């Protein structure tokens, strides 16, 4: 059964909140609402290395393989969900 992009986006948001929890604990001011429109770098201040690290978390959580080349056009959580949905439904 195909997973919808919306359901994958919700899973990614849950994973992202968990990934960011230690940082938010150390700096409560940094805590912010995460939605599909959230920009990974400008809103969450993740650098490119951290985005790649987070991608590995998604791969392990969903048991998929996502090549890092596909991150080149990813800016928002929604962009990331599109890439991941493509792999989940491949």
């Amino acid at each position, binding site marked *: 059964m195909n997973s919808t992009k919306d359901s994958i986006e919700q899973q990614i948001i849950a994973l992202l909140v968990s990934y960011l929890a230690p940082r938010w604990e150390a700096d409560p001011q940094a805590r912010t609402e995460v939605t599909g429109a959230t920009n990974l770098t400008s809103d969450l201040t993740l650098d490119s*290395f951290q985005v790649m690290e987070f991608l*590995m978390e998604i*791969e392990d959580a969903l048991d998929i*393989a996502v*090549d890092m080349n596909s991150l080149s056009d990813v800016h928002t959580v929604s962009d990331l969900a599109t890439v991941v949905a493509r792999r989940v439904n491949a």
Partner: protein
Amino acid sequence: MALLDKFAAVAAIRAGLNTSSHDPTQVVIGTIISATEGIVEGRHTILAGTNNYLGLTFDPACIAAGQNALATQGSGTTGSRMANGSYATHAALEQELADFYEMPYGMVFSTGYAANLGTLAALLTPGDAVLLDADAHASLYDGCRMSGAEIFRFKHNDVVSLEKRLQRLGERAENCLIVTEGLYSVLGDCAPLRQIVEVAERFGAKLLVDEAHSLGAYGDHGRGVAEAEGVLDRVDFVVGTFSKSLGAMGGFCVSPHAELKLFRYVSRPFIFTASSSPSIIATTREALRQLVARPELRQTLWRNARQLYQGVQSIGFTTGPEVSPVVAVRIGEKEAALQCWNRLLELGIYVNLMIPPASPDSSSYLRCSVSAAHTTAQMETILEAFRQLRQN
């Protein structure tokens, strides 16, 4: 955004590094005195961040070989080997490297960066899959990117993470390449190559190991971590550099696969780069001879590595996970690391400052590289400087 506007961000990062007395990206060694000493800002300084693991940069035999080549073969080759032809010494070095590794084929590049770029860009094409250790050197990332292959990262030195990704690739795993290093240059930790080789063989994948920081330091013959782990004959491609233990400039790939002979026809970083000058080739060949003939250099290197690693731990610092010629001292926050780095320089000790994202775990480190040429007294001076850091 205008073409040049992006440099505002670069300028801001640089300004952040320049808040204290010295800019770690702008250190000038005014006079180089020896393999382990220089004059920095008029101050006698012990160099403990130069990757000069065997201390061969001032070796008299290497210098004589370079001087002779300069006098008899000229200052440069003025072009690429593909266009201008190879000198006999380029081919001789390739054979000597192949012999050193007990592999049939060798290829020399003009820099270590070009060796990784040129090997990976020749080996991989779009549609191929490559599994890359997350902490791999930028040159390995760039080579994979340049090839157009699909890049899958696995967690650093995590064999389970590698295995999971191979499983997810399904049938493609059989035709993929795994890329790892021998010794990782920031924390000084070694890859679990025996386990990685076993996983690679189980899935039918090929394995490339970068021994840039481990050549000369690991293994009974100094061939690197793959030799030390007893799996060198099960590695498909070994790449490395001449600019660390061999004290020169350049890089190489050796392999049991005859196809390596064909890489030079498709490897753009090889085809479109001027070949190494005769003096560089000559000093490299002599340094390789020294590496083979003088195993005591390796013993001294390890004695010094143990002294520094255990010494900074006993002072109370947290280090990388294992004793190695790279001693990473964890400081934590970037600002504190910058202050400590400055203080060490004022005390006449040069080390490397590693801050995120160049450091692997969001912490900042003072990275020391140990040399066989460091004297016991110099090691004590370095440790005394770390003691002063701790007291402050």
